[in-house]
């Protein structure tokens, strides 16, 4: 079995040293002979190393290291092409084969996948931004100034995070538009549409909570305007219908819970930070896992399916 053993099937121990290996004790005091024997041995070892290296370079896929990483053989067979996708943790959400018309751009617009990719870049840039940011009223704004002027590539990092967030919102909305136009929410994908709507809401919330973090006028007033609406929540807000009757005041209503106070201040900043960097990403990731898993379980991507004709509608069973 050449591919499970060493390079050419030769056991490692019977290599070159066999000729020079016994130079140690038998011939005794002859110093010159000893040196020659060691040199010869070294030369043979070198030749073998070169040989092994050549083999490795020629066919790296036959090494044990390669095989241990990739787990399966990768040759030009349909089976190993399929295994290449199925046995890879990052790719295994894909099926081995898909509808030949689905790979064209015009059906899916690629919006779902690109949204996920933008989300990944946002997590990446966001994590780097967290290294330079303190969610505290005293230093938050200065951290942004520092990031923009002193941190290497800090400005680029912040810009990418900002524009990536906008891009993600646009892409999510277009993804929903496409799914609607293709009727992809219909049986059996109804529930995945519901998960998708929740992901849309979470995307908007992610973007909104991030708005406050620079602690500038733009974010401050946007969040003030936004959370002032919570004041008007029916039953739960102090200015909302029936709120006063239920004993809601600015100090115990739903807005107070969102801001951690009655005004947008230090507590609101910390809450926005935690929602933005920890809580919502975790929740959204969980929903994304479900979303992608359901795409597979509900029969993969919805189309382009063969068109159905009006004359082929089957009657529903009436209860």
């Amino acid at each position, binding site marked *: 079995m050449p591919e499970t053993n060493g390079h050419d099937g030769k056991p490692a121990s019977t290599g070159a040293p066999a000729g020079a290996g016994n130079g140690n004790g038998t011939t005794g005091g002859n110093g010159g002979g000893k040196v020659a024997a060691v040199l010869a041995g070294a030369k043979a070892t070198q030749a073998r190393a070169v040989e092994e290296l050549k083999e490795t370079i020629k066919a790296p896929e036959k090494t044990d290291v390669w095989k241990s990483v990739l787990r399966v053989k990768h040759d030009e067979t349909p089976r190993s092409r399929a295994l290449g996708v199925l046995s890879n943790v990052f790719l295994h959400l894909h099926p081995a084969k*898909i509808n030949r018309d689905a790979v064209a751009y015009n059906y899916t617009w690629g919006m779902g996948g690109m949204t996920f990719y933008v989300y990944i870049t946002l997590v990446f840039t966001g994590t780097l931004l967290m290294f330079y940011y303190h969610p505290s009223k005293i230093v938050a704004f200065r951290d942004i100034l520092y990031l923009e002027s002193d941190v290497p590539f800090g400005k680029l990092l912040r810009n990418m995070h900002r524009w990536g967030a906008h*891009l993600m919102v646009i892409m999510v909305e277009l993804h929903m538009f496409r799914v*609607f136009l293709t009727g992809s929410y219909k049986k059996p994908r109804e529930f995945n549409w519901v998960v998708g709507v929740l992901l849309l809401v979470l995307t908007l919330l992610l973007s909104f909570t991030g708005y406050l973090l620079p602690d500038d006028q733009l974010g401050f007033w946007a969040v003030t305007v936004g959370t002032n609406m919570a004041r008007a929540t029916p039953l739960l807000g102090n200015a909302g219908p029936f709120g006063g009757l239920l004993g809601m005041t600015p100090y115990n209503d739903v807005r107070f819970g969102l801001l951690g106070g009655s005004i947008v201040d230090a507590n609101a900043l910390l809450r926005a930070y935690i929602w933005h960097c920890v809580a919502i990403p975790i929740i959204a990731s969980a929903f994304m896992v479900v979303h992608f898993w359901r795409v597979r379980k509900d029969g993969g991507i919805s189309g382009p399916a063969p068109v159905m*004709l009006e004359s082929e509608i089957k009657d529903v069973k009436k209860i």
Partner: protein
Amino acid sequence: MDLHQLWTIVSLPDNVPIVLLLFVVPFYTWYGMRQAFANDRLIAQLEGDPAMAKTHHRKVQPFKTGWAREVHVWPYLLRIEFLAAIIVTVILMVWSITLNAPLEEPSNPTLTMNPSKAPWYFLGLQEMLVYFDPWIAGVVMPSLIIIGLMVVPYIDTNPLGNGYYTFKQRKFSILTFIFGFIVLWVSMIVIGTLIRGPGWMWFWPGTTWDHNRLIFEVNRDLPDIFGISGRVGKIIFGAIVVGLYFIAAGIGMHKLIVKTPFNRKIYARMSVLQYTVMQVFLIVMLALPVKILVRLLFRIKYIWVTPWFNV
């Protein structure tokens, strides 16, 4: 014509997404509808020719017998995904290098920004604040939008158009969605971004933002027009008017729902619950443009005035 003012608004970094939206939404609408019409032509052809319908592969995409219906994900899909990732990265990089994220002065609770705008994707809701009280525009309507979207698959009993673009087979649902998404959501965002100026006043594109402009709008409540003054009278009158709207809109919607023979066929498949839920969401959705028109045409602020809430 104040082009400088227009440029100041359009070139504001945070408004770039809306300018982008102005291009991508019409583009993708055209892109999707083009495929829908292509499919509709095929459907019409197949409906007219049963023999062809039996043998045809039923797609507009080319297909020959002997072609595999499926292709390997590697490389045919993964290479596209990889390419898409590279293109998105390049776009994001170029965008981030050429345009800086906005950063205003440090937050200052004593200095109110005018206009003070929400992030662009919430501007539709902020625009609704002009026509509704905050509890409707900021809480009830957003919740109804979310729930309404969630129930869509459960009230759409039309089995056609599952997994392909089509317009003819799903006229009602597609027009409803386009109305909700493009007419209500996107255009309200565009209005909120490009048109609303200081004091949330209406400034046509190209006019100068006048911070001292005042408009004395004489907004009246509907009961006052009819001379109803008592508190109880107002409550009852408002409830009747709102109820009448619900009935009228419901009847109108019903007429639309059963307008064509095909629509009647789909209607026959609905359960009472499905029909009721659909009606409620359609009526509430229609209430938004109706209220806007009532405000703009008749300068009416509230229709239903009560001590606890106003509609």
